[in-house]
């Protein structure tokens, strides 16, 4: 009887730990999913006198990628972002707390997958998007609603299992 109790408690603890250890506390659930993409009107990285707004993308399914030249994981995910853009997905870059003199050569060096990159030097718009760890990637639908958010680099698995199916669904 006593053995059964102890064994029961042990198994319960084991289950609890198994579930608990699998959860990633770093994965902050974004409250922005299902909400309209926050409005912005920012200068282009390449042309400071021209501006770009999220409204310019209404009617299209698009991806917003927050990146910076100082951000090492951005380079890691770059092949995935490039693959998206090669598949004719419009990817807009949000250049986060960067300097033009660093960001523009970064694109020349590593290839520019963006239909446009906007320049958020102070990181004020990124704050509206709840950015806390670059890179971050958002999938936004035709109505301008955020459908998916990835914090951290887009891995080939995430691209294949999450982002590409979602894009197909939204475009279908």
């Amino acid at each position, binding site marked *: 009887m006593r053995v059964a109790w102890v064994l029961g408690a042990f198994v319960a603890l084991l289950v609890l730990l198994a579930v608990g250890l699998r959860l990633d*506390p*770093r994965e*902050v*659930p*974004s*409250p*922005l999913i299902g909400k309209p993409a926050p409005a912005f009107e920012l200068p282009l990285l390449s042309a400071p006198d021209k501006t770009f707004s999220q409204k310019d993308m209404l009617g299209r399914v698009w991806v917003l990628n927050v990146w910076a030249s100082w951000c090492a994981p951005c380079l890691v995910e770059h092949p995935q972002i490039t693959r998206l853009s090669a598949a004719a997905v419009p990817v807009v870059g949000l250049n986060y*707390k960067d300097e033009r003199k660093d960001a523009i050569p970064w694109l020349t060096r590593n290839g520019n997958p963006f239909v446009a990159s906007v320049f958020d030097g102070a*990181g004020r718009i990124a*704050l*509206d*998007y*709840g950015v*806390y*760890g670059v890179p971050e990637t958002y999938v936004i639908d035709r109505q301008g609603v955020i459908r998916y958010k990835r914090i951290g680099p887009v891995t080939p698995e995430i691209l294949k299992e999450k982002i590409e199916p979602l894009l197909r669904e939204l475009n279908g």
Partner: protein
Amino acid sequence: MARLLLVLFCGIALAQEDPALEKRVRDLSSELRCLVCQNQTLADSSAPLAVDLRNQVREQLKSGKSERDVVDFLVARYGDFVLYRPPLKASTVLLWAGPFILLAFGLFLLFLRIKRKVRAPELSDAERARAAKLLE
């Protein structure tokens, strides 16, 4: 040297600009989680994002917004996760009630045990006789 002194002086002047506001910023920031280093409060963290968010808190409080407004602003962007004191709602009921449920369960077990212990030593007449004999 003169330059350094000037910088120091400016720093002090800036910090003393409005002690009441600074206190509010500090109090509110210590209720908020820094998302970059998740076990630090916004007040303690020196991560660039924490600095940005503290400035945001300061700016908004300065413009006349209440603590509640600032918290709502941050929750709308980063979720309940920024709060060190999660709100009571359906998904967090277990978090708040859990310890009390465990306490009640523990008290229940304790009660069962005590009851069993108290009931146990009932001796029959034969046993009493034997015990008396042994004690002689």
